């Protein structure tokens, strides 16, 4: 049915996508250790993960090659996560973004969703719940792409 990344329907305790459907992920966080940790964790699940320490680095990386999904920290120097989110979406409509916010910014999370993020994670989060969200987001992206190929004129994203 779905051609792109499609993990198992119910993400169990350790969702692991098939090797053939290795999605390209980008992690943006100015806290480099944190970004590395997420990279390790996601790489264990079989994704190809790049990390960027700043918004400019993320933009440069995206120019070189497109990503399926980006995990973006909200609070960063030089450019906020929300701005980066808008920029990434502008360059590539097919990129899905999960925002990582500090705990307690529920309204900022909503704001991010309004601006086109597909989900948000409140720090500190469990790596397992992050993996679940990533898998779910990729699944949604696959559905979105499929819909796009069927009805190219309709944009599902705009409805959000």
């Amino acid at each position, binding site marked *: 049915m779905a051609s792109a990344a499609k993990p198992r329907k119910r993400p169990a305790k350790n969702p692991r996508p098939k090797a053939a459907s290795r999605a390209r992920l980008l992690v943006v966080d100015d806290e480099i250790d*944190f970004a590395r*940790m997420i990279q390790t964790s996601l790489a264990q699940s079989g994704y190809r993960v790049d990390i960027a320490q700043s918004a400019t680095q993320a933009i440069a990386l995206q120019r070189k090659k497109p990503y399926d999904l980006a995990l973006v920290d909200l609070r960063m120097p030089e450019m906020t996560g929300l701005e980066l989110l808008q920029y990434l979406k502008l360059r590539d409509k097919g990129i899905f973004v999960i925002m990582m916010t500090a705990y*307690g910014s*529920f*309204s900022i999370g909503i704001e991010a969703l309004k601006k086109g993020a597909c989900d948000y994670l409140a720090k500190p989060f*469990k*790596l397992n*719940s992050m993996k679940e969200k990533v898998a779910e987001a990729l699944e949604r992206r696959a559905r979105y792409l499929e819909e796009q190929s069927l009805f190219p004129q309709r944009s599902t994203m705009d409805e959000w």
Partner: protein
Amino acid sequence: MSSFETDRQSFRHLLRARTLCLGLLILLLWLGEGSRSQSIAVEAGWNILLFAVVLSLVFMALGGIRRITGFLLPLVMIVDTLLAGVWISASGGPVSNYMPLFLLILVSALMILPPKRAVVVVAWVLVIAIVTLYLDFAWRLPMVFDAGDINPFSAILEKSSLEFRRAAYLHQGVRWVFFLVMITLLCFVLMRQVWSREEKLRAREKSLEQKRHFIQMGELTGRIAHGVNTPLGLISGNLELLMGETRKDSKTYKQLAQIDQYVQRAINTVRDVLDYSRQSLSEIKPVSVPHILQAAVQAIQPKLKEKEAKLIVDIDPNLPALLAYTEGLFQAHLNLLENALDSIDTGGLITLSAKFQYRQVRLSAADKRGEIKVMVRDTGRGIPSPDLKRIFEPFYSTKGFGKGTGLGLAIVKRVVDEHRGTITVESRMGEGSSFTILFPAEGISAERDHEKDALGYNADHLNGKDA
């Protein structure tokens, strides 16, 4: 800005004092009518003196001297005094004497009073004026006076017939008593307003002080939380990685699991403290209650799965928008759900329902204000009745040391209070508990917004100090 506020305050005090003082002046003139001099100049002098004395007395009585500073006091005093003196002296007849003063009172009253009160005072003054006119023209014995008598009372004295005198004294007496009563009442009304306003002001200052305290606390905890949360996130993440690499039956895994457990506890504590202190910082806006509830349901979903519990959601999608703190509302409902989840055993049942209902009629059938009723029921252990009274107190936990911070329900209570709602709890041991929240449908009213404005200003002020 604050100096402007003081000016406006003192101006109001001034006007109020002036109103009182004019009332007293009329009274004194009235009482002294019989012995008035015929010379306009002397009379004007007396009036001015009288006015100045009365004005100062009233100011002192009101404590206005303390508050009113600058050029305003002497200016208004001089203008008023001259005005009153000239008006009173220039007018000849007994009735016209008081009309300009009535007008002054009316204008002052209109300026200082809220519309509703102003109407009352205007009606009041009109009653005084009409009764006075009646007394002066209709009730007075017409045959006593000649058409040319300027001062009827002295005319009576001149005619000096005992019968006429009696009638005239009676007339005078009724006027005095009537006037005394009316003016006393008016003064009382105005003074009561002063008192109640000052009381309100004091209460507001107090609540503002509390808010400021909360803001400072919020900033502090926010900073601490951010500083603590980042390392905690790293620790817990790396622990998870390590645990993934370790065999589950090994000793190392058990030790790591224990560390993880304690790290989670630290994370929870930080989170609860943050929730408890942050409420007053979020902004008020119209929010859709179904959305908030759905978000809370979404957030609890993973834990629900873990415990294999069932959650029945019954939310009326047409609930009116509530003027509320988004985050507070979300947090409160999430806490309630988590609480319910903690109390049930595996496979238990939680019910979340939200609907609109009309408030129980208290005043009249026309009083159709509604409220939003949110209920969270569980089939859990229930809460023992001694605990029931105290569960909303901060740091009161029944979950045992280290498991809960005791802030969860305290946060709920705070949020509900902030939205002027009420929360009640019913519980039966072994059968479960049910929490019922009632939010007034209008949410946080305009007065609250006003407070918020003042708060915003103060918060800026605080920030300015920090910078």
